[in-house]
């Protein structure tokens, strides 16, 4: 297992390095730059002032020099300063991460709480009204866009109940109740959407496992259905579900831009979108590297979890 992990780590570093080059080149192809954004309505300033400002921001240097300089900083543990904001890349990521993490965890918990029981029940009660209802709800969750659901929720909560959740983010440790009030609606909407996909995956894998001979044997031995499902079916059905869940959770850690916008949550998704639209190259690079590292780490974690779930799987 140790040598497996080392190999994965080396592979991860290569992936991250290549990814950083691609991201760097892509964003520099976009028209406009950080100085243009900062100047805003001032528009064009005199050429000498323009050159001076570009020099101070470091964006007058050749791209290769800019990239190398940035990479040198990364190797020293410094992701650099934002080109637009008077703050470091790390500090801005640090401020956004707890919000995104909280939303991701809440949404994932809701998704699992929906998917596990509904998916299993739907499989056990295949082709019954319960199964049909579960499938309709799952399809609806997949088909209805989250932003529409969120807009409708905000609008009709206000129109019908004269209530809107607090749209000013309050950290969990400052006021847990107010924090929950702000987070619960986006978490529910995201969780429902994720849970829909997971439900379908759960249903289909459980159905597949239920058809195996060893399940027929277990029933023939007289084991109770609950024991069969809990001990034999679930573990075997979970591997694909965990893969999907892991990918979904990784995507959530990248930030749900739409939910963050609609509910005014200052998470990592909005931060990344803002950095791209502001041509904040250092922030984009930093975010991409960080999120890439998370994705790689999550993938390793998922792979390792397979070994725990299925003893037949061994990494050597």
């Amino acid at each position: 297992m140790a040598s497996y992990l080392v190999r994965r780590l080396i592979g991860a570093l290569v992936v991250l390095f290549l990814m950083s080059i691609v991201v760097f080149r892509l964003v520099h192809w976009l028209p406009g730059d950080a100085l243009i954004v900062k100047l805003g309505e001032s528009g064009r300033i005199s050429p000498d002032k323009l050159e001076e400002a570009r020099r101070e921001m470091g964006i007058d240097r050749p791209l290769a020099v800019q990239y190398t300089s940035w990479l040198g900083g990364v190797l020293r543990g410094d992701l650099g300063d934002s080109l637009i904001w008077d703050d470091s890349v790390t500090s801005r990521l640090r401020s956004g991460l707890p919000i995104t993490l909280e939303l991701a965890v809440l949404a994932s918990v809701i998704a699992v709480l929906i998917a596990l029981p509904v998916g299993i029940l739907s499989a056990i009660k295949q082709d019954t009204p319960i199964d049909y209802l579960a499938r309709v709800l799952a399809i609806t969750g997949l088909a209805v866009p989250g932003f529409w659901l969120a807009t409708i929720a905000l609008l009709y909560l206000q129109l019908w109940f004269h209530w809107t959740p607090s749209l000013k983010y309050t950290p969990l440790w400052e006021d847990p109740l107010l924090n929950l009030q702000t987070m619960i609606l986006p978490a529910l909407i995201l969780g429902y959407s994720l849970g829909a996909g997971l439900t379908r995956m759960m249903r289909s894998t459980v159905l597949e496992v239920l058809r195996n001979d060893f399940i027929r044997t277990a029933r023939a031995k007289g084991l109770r259905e609950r024991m069969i499902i809990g001990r034999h079916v679930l573990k075997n059905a979970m591997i694909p579900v965990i893969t999907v869940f892991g990918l979904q959770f990784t995507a959530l850690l990248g930030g749900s831009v739409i939910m963050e916008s609609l509910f005014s949550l200052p998470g990592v998704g909005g931060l990344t979108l803002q950095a791209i639209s502001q041509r904040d190259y250092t922030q984009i690079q930093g975010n991409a590297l960080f999120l890439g590292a998370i994705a790689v780490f999550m993938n390793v974690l998922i792979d390792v979890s397979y070994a725990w779930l299925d003893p037949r799987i061994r990494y050597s």
Partner: protein
Amino acid sequence: MSGSHWRQGRPGGINRRRALGLVGAGGATAFLIACGGDDKSSKDAGSNQPSSASGDRSAGAAAPGSVQVNLDAKSKPVTGKEKIEELRERFHPQNLKHLAGQKDGPKSGGTLRWASNVPVSWDLAGPAASLLASYAVFHNGLISFEMGDMSENLNLVKTEGDLAQSWEQPDKLTLTFKLNPGVKWQDVKPVGGRAFSADDVKFAVEVYQKAPVQSVIYRDVERVEAPDANTVVFRMKQPVAYLLGVLRQPMNLIFAREQYESPDGLKSGPIGTGAFIYEGGQDRVGWKARKNPTYFKKDKWSGKQLPYLDRIETTYYADTNASLAAFRDKQADIYYPLNRSIWMDVLKTNPEVITQITTPPPSYQPYMGIRVDKPPFNDVRVRRALSLAVNRDDIIFGPFDGMAGYGYAQDWTYFDQEWPWSADQLGSYMKFDPKEAKRLMTEAGFPNGIGRKLEIYHIASNGINFDVGQLVADMWKKNLGIDVVETVPPDSAAWQQNFYGVKYEDTIVAAVAGPSLDPDAYAYDPLHSKSTKNYFKVNDPELDNLTEAQRVEFDTPKRQQLLKQIMQRDLDQAYRLWTVAPYKINTRYPYLFNAVDQVHAWGPLGWGSKVCELIWMNK
């Protein structure tokens, strides 16, 4: 109007002499309005320009709160069918002084909640300085302009002192300011609440002279002197008439040397002499401020100490649905409906809100830049045809639901005109005449289209300006047979690159002209061949001469004449395609007072506004 356009302001309490003077001025104003008089006031003929003289709008005519007004939809419904003339009359800012609650105030206390993010940088002298024009609550400049419910007319500009108590121009190369006594810096390190003096102004201006954004404002200033603690003297390299106008803008806020020279400099946060002290903020969350207990100003109407509010707390809303939901839920005290339809929606759920409709700002209106240096746009007949092919009434009554006037970015308030330009003030090529347009195109050698695709480079932000661009494209296709290709930028940065870098191929949709409180920015900047802000490649010797001449003309009527000539030449040559100028709609809860718009300033915490120091609440 004769003599200098700039009137000295004297902040302070109202005494008997001053009150009598105001009543006398108010009565004289009412008499002049009733008798007709100067046709530069907004009595123009034309469907969009009725007289604004109905009723007596003078400041001294009736006691505040004593006249019945219908600024909400509860006392009198808003049907949605009203014409703009009716709406401007009913929701005119001068009616705000007659809100019933005015009798109870002003009162101290309360927290203003509003939609605002922290700026990208607090550096007043950095590249992002223009963005800080919306955060003028922490600092003061030398001069500013009147805002508040009791204002004479928020659709016009009335200069008043800010840090300066008075000013004079003894000759064309000298501008002298006398500062208010007893001003202190906020008690925040490293400035620490010390006394403010003329040296602070001198220092800040000298920094601005080298700053990327402000250096252009002070380019004609030779030096600044501080002969004593309360006097600042500007010595000019050459006479310029625009300086007082631009000094009212919120890009000239005064900061302290100690902060500038500290390790973090001005980026550490705003420390000024202003009404509020910054407490902190976070990107995409908002910011907080508390009242400055040592603020030097008193309310010139009530005589009471400012500011009234205890605190300001802002929230950042990334989405307009979220900001509307917050307003409906009273998580925010003010809201800006972007158009009439949204305003009507707000009134359905919150009929109690107070509405103010303000004349459009000349600086913010959809228009199109044209590459007048490239064929076929270097042919004036083609440019005129493009303009004649656009039906501006369709735009006014289409996406704007009637809440817009004809557009042209020159400050009509400089001509003491309250409402936007009327059709007859805008020359021969702003009317809709597709036949004449076609004839001109044929004469220019383009009987059907221009022989190739014409690119319209769209604007990335604000849906309604994008709609205008699309409408214009449709009109050109339909009326001139032009094969239009519409390019949509991925975001604002791409648009900015194309516009400010003059990289667009043919035409580009824009929404900002200026902004500025002096007509020079609407004349010289876009039209002089040597101007860095000439984004259209205009190269017209007549305009060069005229724009240079207005810069040095101190006599207001003569300067107005020159500006009118510039306007006529610009419109005659159709260097840019003008469309419409949208009215501003501001809604606020009835417990809030003085949270006004002014023609140039947006809301209590928008561009150019310092009105937060006057806001009070009765909750």
